[in-house]
């Protein structure tokens, strides 16, 4: 795997990390603005922040009450 010498691990992973970060931020902004969520807000905050990728997805799919 000589590519390791050429490519910086950090550079490769940065886009992925940025995408996940944006996803978390979008979910959190939505959570703050929303009046009704299914279950307590603090629970969703923890899920969104600590469950990588899947946390925000679960929030978007089932966490939000339909208007």
């Amino acid at each position, binding site marked *: *795997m000589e590519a390791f010498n050429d490519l910086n691990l950090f550079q490769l992973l940065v886009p992925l990390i940025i995408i996940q970060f944006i*996803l978390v931020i979008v979910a959190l902004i939505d959570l703050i603005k929303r009046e009704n969520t299914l279950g307590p807000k603090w629970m969703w905050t923890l899920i969104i922040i600590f469950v990588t990728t899947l946390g925000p997805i679960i929030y978007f*799919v089932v966490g939000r009450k339909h208007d």
Partner: protein
Amino acid sequence: MQWMTLFNKEMLENWRNKKWLWVPLVMMIVTIMDPISYYFLPYILENMGDMPDGAILEMPAVKAEAAFMMSIESLSMYGALILILIFMGTITNERQLGITELILAKPIDYRNYITAKWAAYISLAIISLLVSLSMSWYYTNLLFGSLSIQLFILTVAFYSVWFIFVISLTIFFNTFCKNAGLVVACTIGSLFSLSGINAVVGYRLTWFPNQLAAHLNEMLLTSEVSGALLGTVGIIICLILLLLTVSIIIFQRKELI
């Protein structure tokens, strides 16, 4: 005119509830996760520390085409699941909440109502597909060697048809299922049945819908669009049209409240 009104409403709704942000983001993560993990696998294993000294880890060399196929396979699984989840309640929820009673009292052509929703979600699905596969293409070129832009575009184009099929299936179940949960169950059930049939007799049915991935793989390897690939795509398009027509007929016949 009426169609555009309905279509714009769906687009605006998907923008306001942030689907236009999170769906492409999640699809990107889904597509690039596998190629990246595969690339880093030897590195990860080495650092686990339980390798005997001097052991050399030989990973089979992966070509760009195979790496790109990993993305497609992830999309078939998780990408399709996300599409079903975001589309599951598009009609059932409106009906359950009672919005349908107000909206369908307007002189709405049911064909417009169904196809505008369908088209709005297809836009979202295809844009997400394009963005995520571009990302995957970028990584493929960076890590595994080059893949021509022609092949990339062809893959996106042919694979879009599969996503449209999944959305058509979801809207079909939306027209008669009582709630969103049932829509998800029916849609996933149907997709599993299809892949089950494919596993058993797929090798004999060249144009079977689930053979699409195999044909795409072949296209990436040979750089040629086979007749089998076109046939399969043709069959899927026919199924899409059939599902849409039946959806509209069911919707017209059904008492909606």
